[in-house]
């Protein structure tokens, strides 16, 4: 005499019901990646949904560029007459870009603030901190209130 009691809520409830998931399991929609970390590829919805021919073509174009670069590199690498290193123009560009940002620098609010915060403020603050501390110590020595133990570290 088993009566099937269909609870109305179970038919309308979403799959995120805790009856089907133990405490440790998470489903793809619930997974929250840590800040600044990435999502595992198996949990990336773009791998499963929105797959179109354009995306396929774009991937093929990227693969073509990559294959061309690989061909160039392997040709130079296996050249029997090559005596020098194989230059990497991407590396040259990167090094040049990192070393020469000055032509594109513009004083804006943000850049000025950063410059002031990291360049000017530490100098000024440290000057005042050290000066007041040492003046106070000097005054105490002159007044004779400073306890000067014989101690190797200050």
């Amino acid at each position, binding site marked *: 005499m088993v009566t099937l009691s269909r609870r109305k809520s179970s038919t309308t409830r979403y799959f995120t019901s805790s009856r089907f998931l133990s405490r440790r399991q998470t489903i793809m929609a619930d997974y*929250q*990646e*840590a800040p600044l*970390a*990435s999502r595992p590829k198996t949990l990336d919805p773009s791998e499963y949904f929105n797959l179109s021919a354009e995306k396929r073509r774009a991937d093929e174009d990227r693969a073509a560029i990559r294959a061309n670069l690989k061909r160039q590199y392997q040709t130079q690498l296996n050249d029997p007459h090559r005596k020098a290193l194989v230059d990497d123009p991407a590396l040259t560009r990167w090094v040049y*870009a*990192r070393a020469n940002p000055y032509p594109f620098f513009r004083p804006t609010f943000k850049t000025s603030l950063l410059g002031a915060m990291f360049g000017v403020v530490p100098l000024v603050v440290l000057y005042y901190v050290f000066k007041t501390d040492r003046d106070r110590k000097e005054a105490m020595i002159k007044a004779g209130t400073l306890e000067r133990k014989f101690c190797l570290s200050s």
Partner: protein
Amino acid sequence: MRTSQSVRQQQPVNMAGVGFLRWAQALPKRKGSGIAGLLSGARAASGPSKDTILGPFPTTPEERAAAAKKYNMKVEDYEPYPDKGEGFGDYPKLPDRSQHERDPWYQWDHPDLRRNWGEPMHWDFDMFIRNRVDTSPTLLSWSSMCKQLFGSLGFILLMFYLGEIFPFYQAVAPKQYPYNNLYLERGGDPEKQPEEVKNYVI
């Protein structure tokens, strides 16, 4: 006449002076202001060529296409850093993903860096190498990690604090000295009889 001309040509002339004079004459015609106006805009021919150096922020679609081609990227993928005067120029903004995340089994041209030759490098590439910052997916959730770290640190600090308030150590008493608390050694009068000091209880 001819001899005097050749003699004049052979007179030594200070090229530094000549260079300075030319620079001073060209100075009012310069466009930039401040230090940019004093420096020369030309680069030595021994340096990198125009297509390998950083260019200005691309504004037109043609500039974008040219920049994408320069960096070996598709035009759709190419995205420069926003032009906020921070010095990036037209360098592409690649996703902030560390080299830890790249496939360890693929045949990279440089396996230790997990990078192929000619591939555009991230601006912070030296930060994302495999010895340094790792952005791969974490094993635990952020909340779990925070709870574990701050929970254990907090507990340790709490115990230290309680240990300061309620110190627990072996019971000690002040040091006891013999001979009436060292009466003679402390400069007591040898003629006088010191008071008896009893440091024990039986």
